């Protein structure tokens, strides 16, 4: 069975959940090998984590020389590793960085690329991917027909399955060209933690839009009562009420939680693109003609400023 490389998604060595999802998928396709590009001293700690989800090998690529640069050096490292081990496939998290690494890697390896897969299964002649396209209006299955399949996978595309792998650490020294060091990270300001679940991973998302009038307290209140994450429409972000990192939609995040509650959001196609595949959709809007009501499982025509606080109180009461 050939090795399937999984690029480890991490922040300073802290492994993020999409890594385990990718390892679970990799196991369907071949022998999972994790690729950790980071501080070499954290390699064994990372190896222990990823081995619990089936990683047989863990390639540790020290990033001391490349940490301060965007994307290109990581693509070079992955290329060299994929060629060395004759990888059967390369799985990469569907983040901004992940997709750009994948784009460069595809050209380098002369291999086909599929982005934003929401499912990957093994098929005749290679992995078969499922994607959700056109604002979630279509489902597309596809496969790579040339070279080593490179697939970027969206968060929550598989339930992580624990499965003990050998987790054998192997250091890999990548030859990074000077040309790859052209885009330098001059400054970086970490985002402040909100204390709420990560938007990409949350089972419940409560979003606010123009109808909040800029006051997100009712939205946050209900999110906290339900243990959910807070999101926003582009209108709310453009108004400066909430940072762009909370935006759901075409130019923000795509979420697919168990429950999505849209408060004061009309439901333009751009917003629908980011939430249409949610399992259960609820909306609260003053305008009964709002297009969001076409999508909902349950809708309340009313003012979110009264409905949300009352619902929050009731949720807290019911939860006891």
């Amino acid at each position, binding site marked *: 069975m050939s090795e399937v490389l999984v690029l480890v998604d991490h922040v300073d060595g802290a492994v993020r959940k999409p890594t385990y999802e990718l390892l679970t998928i990799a196991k369907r396709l071949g022998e999972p090998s994790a690729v950790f590009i980071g501080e070499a001293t954290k390699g064994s700690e990372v190896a222990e984590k990823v081995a619990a989800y089936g990683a047989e090998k863990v390639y540790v690529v020290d990033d001391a020389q490349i940490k301060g640069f*965007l994307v*290109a050096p990581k693509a070079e490292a992955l290329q060299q590793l994929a060629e060395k081990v004759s990888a059967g496939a390369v799985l990469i998290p569907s*983040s901004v*960085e992940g997709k*750009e*690494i994948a*784009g*460069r890697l*595809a*050209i380098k390896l002369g*291999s086909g690329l*599929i982005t*934003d897969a929401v499912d990957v299964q093994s098929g005749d002649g290679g992995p078969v991917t499922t994607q959700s396209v056109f*604002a979630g*209006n*279509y*489902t*597309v*299955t*596809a*496969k*790579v*027909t040339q070279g080593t399949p490179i697939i970027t996978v969206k968060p929550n595309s598989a339930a992580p399955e624990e499965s003990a792998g050998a987790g054998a650490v192997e250091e890999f020294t990548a030859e990074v060209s000077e*040309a790859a060091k052209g*885009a*330098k*990270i*001059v400054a*970086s*300001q970490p*985002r402040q933690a909100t204390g709420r679940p990560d938007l*990409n991973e949350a089972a419940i998302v409560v979003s606010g839009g123009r109808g909040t009038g800029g006051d997100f307290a009712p939205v946050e209140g209900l999110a906290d009562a*339900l243990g959910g994450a807070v999101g926003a429409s582009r209108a709310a*972000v453009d108004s400066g009420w909430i*940072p*762009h*990192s909370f935006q759901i939609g*075409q*130019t923000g995040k795509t979420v697919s939680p168990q*429950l999505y509650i849209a408060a004061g959001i009309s439901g333009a*196609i751009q917003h629908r693109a980011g939430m*249409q595949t949610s399992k*259960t959709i*609820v909306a*609260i809007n003053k305008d*009964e003609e709002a297009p969001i009501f*076409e*999508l*909902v499982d*349950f*809708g*309340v*025509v*009313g003012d979110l400023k*009264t*409905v949300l606080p009352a*619902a929050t109180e*009731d949720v807290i009461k*019911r*939860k006891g």
Partner: protein
Amino acid sequence: MNILVCVKYVPDATADRKFEGDNTVDRVGVDGLLSELDEYAVEQALQLKEKAGDDTEVTALCVGPEKAVDAVRKALQMGVDKGIHVVDDAIAGSDAIATSLVLAKAVEKAAAETKVDLVMCGMASTDAAMSVVPAMLAERLAWPQVTMASVVETQGDQVRIKRDGDVATEVIGATLPIVLSVTDQSGEARYPSFKGIMAAKKKPLETWSLGDLGVDAGQVGLSVAWSAVEDTTARPPRSAGEIVKDEDGSGAPALTAFLASKKFI
């Protein structure tokens, strides 16, 4: 400075987008337009020109079918100086890999005339939305890529951008030439003025074929794409849900009763 802005002609996102029998995007039967997200790149290019002064030239570059010339025209109306439309029947059905090849060859051809300093792109197309062409183009040109900029500043051959990532806000620096993509946070795109619409009619608009770029027709198109769509399925419409009116505070208890019935509470 010589700036090329890549503009894509896409099916209108608010129209009923669909696929052809060969699983390619229907680009003819659905009204098309300049991808909204590329308008931000045009806008930022025009702002760079306005700041830099008269010697900066902005050219809109589009790869697409006959009708895609509309995307170039829109960019000309917004204020870019020149247009290049690469059109060739063989390109139909190309994947991002082949598209990036055609774009790279077009950049090289343009550069043979006047050195290209900056290639600008939107953050993604509104149809395929892969968001990988800037990276692929940079790889092919062997240039750095600086992407997802919300603020762009240049000084001589130095570029600084701000980008809001998932875990951090970053400032990225690079030296021209680069491929740069900008987000919809970079600033609202201007509407063409009446003057701009009239002026656009007189602006140079070149049409290039694959032969002009030295690209073999066998390197592009659906049949040589490195990935293949096997099937497309329209998502079943969501069944109509229950909608209640909030009257005298009836909305909240109805909402929580629904959430409880679905075991969310």
